[in-house]
């Protein structure tokens, strides 16, 4: 039976306990989140004036890596857009402008200085430095953000972390254990605790299965055993802020379904031939 439980959830983080799926499936979801779920990033920059110390290319690269709040429903992927234009249209491109000049004092240009044509599509943070301008230097440019996929460039990854690990299984043999507390002291993640002359698991999800506790146990064989559940996983997702983590994982499920459907259609063609 497939079951999901939220372990942690806020604006950018999501930690789920997933039971009843196998490794290839949870790995497919993890990989799709990284490579297939689209998000927006600056893709093309027209530099009008750049007298800063950084080359145009470096500024363009720095702009590309700024996470941008994405509207997946309002915009199309350039290759799927009806405009069929290399340059893009209002449905597949967002224009940003930037115009800063350092007059008497040096200034730092931040991501917050980018002015978007659509107020809903803006940098996730206003405080990402782009370049420092010395006295008399100027930076003026126009940048175009597009939807893209992580498999083409890491700037289009909606997440900074997408991972899964097995759910640990810790068994303490009550007959062998004399509650010496050596395992409690050794554990780097403070998974174990001693209470009322007994060693107990207090934070199972923090366990990394390093087995230091098994080695630390003076009993031979060890009174503590660390293993993992075969079909239970902790799925960890950390969004860059481009999309809410719930939306990212929902999209991943949709994309996997689409890919499997495509595969079925192709096999049906093979059968016909």
């Amino acid at each position: 039976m497939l079951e999901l439980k939220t372990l942690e959830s806020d604006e950018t983080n999501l930690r789920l306990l997933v039971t009843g799926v196998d490794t290839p499936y949870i790995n497919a979801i993890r990989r799709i989140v990284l490579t297939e779920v689209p998000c927006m990033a600056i893709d093309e920059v027209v530099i009008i004036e750049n007298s800063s110390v950084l080359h145009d290319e470096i500024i363009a690269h720095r702009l590309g890596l700024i996470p941008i709040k994405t509207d997946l429903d309002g915009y199309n992927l350039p290759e799927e857009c009806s405009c069929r234009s290399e340059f893009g249209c209002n449905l597949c491109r967002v224009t940003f402008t930037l115009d800063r000049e350092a007059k008497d004092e040096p200034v730092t240009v931040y991501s917050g200085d980018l002015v978007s044509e659509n107020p809903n599509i803006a940098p996730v943070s206003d405080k990402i430095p782009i370049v420092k301008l010395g006295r008399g230097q100027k930076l003026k440019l126009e940048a175009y953000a597009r939807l893209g996929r992580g498999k083409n460039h890491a700037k289009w990854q909606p997440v900074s972390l997408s991972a899964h690990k097995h759910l640990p299984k810790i068994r303490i043999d009550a007959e062998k254990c004399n509650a010496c507390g050596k395992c409690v002291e050794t554990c780097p993640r403070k998974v174990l605790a001693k209470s009322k002359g007994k060693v107990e698991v207090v934070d199972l999800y923090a366990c990394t299965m390093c087995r230091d506790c098994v080695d630390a146990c003076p009993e031979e064989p060890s009174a503590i055993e660390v293993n993992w559940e075969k079909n239970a996983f902790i799925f960890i997702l950390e969004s860059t802020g481009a999309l809410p983590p719930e939306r990212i994982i929902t999209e991943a499920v949709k994309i996997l379904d689409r890919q499997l459907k495509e595969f079925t259609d192709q096999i049906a063609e093979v059968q016909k031939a």
Partner: protein
Amino acid sequence: MKIKVLKRTENELKIEVEGAGHTLCNLLQKKLLENENVDVAGYDIPHPLTSNPIIYVRTKSPLKPEDALLDAVERAKEMNKEFGEALKRLLQA
């Protein structure tokens, strides 16, 4: 996604899947091997940058390899659907 048939006999099928990777192939391999009438199932990506994955399936007759693949995809879809529904319930709660 496009499938190119490299070898096809009564109970053997070797296909090249353009535009797929470990994501899909590893999932399908697992689902194929769950079927006890599948003799051999595996995939290979000869070169990580320049080649497409090649899936190989050999079945015990009377099961046809194409049907084994369809069955595997169907089971993967079912798991995905279950996961999607569980996720929806979780997010609504």
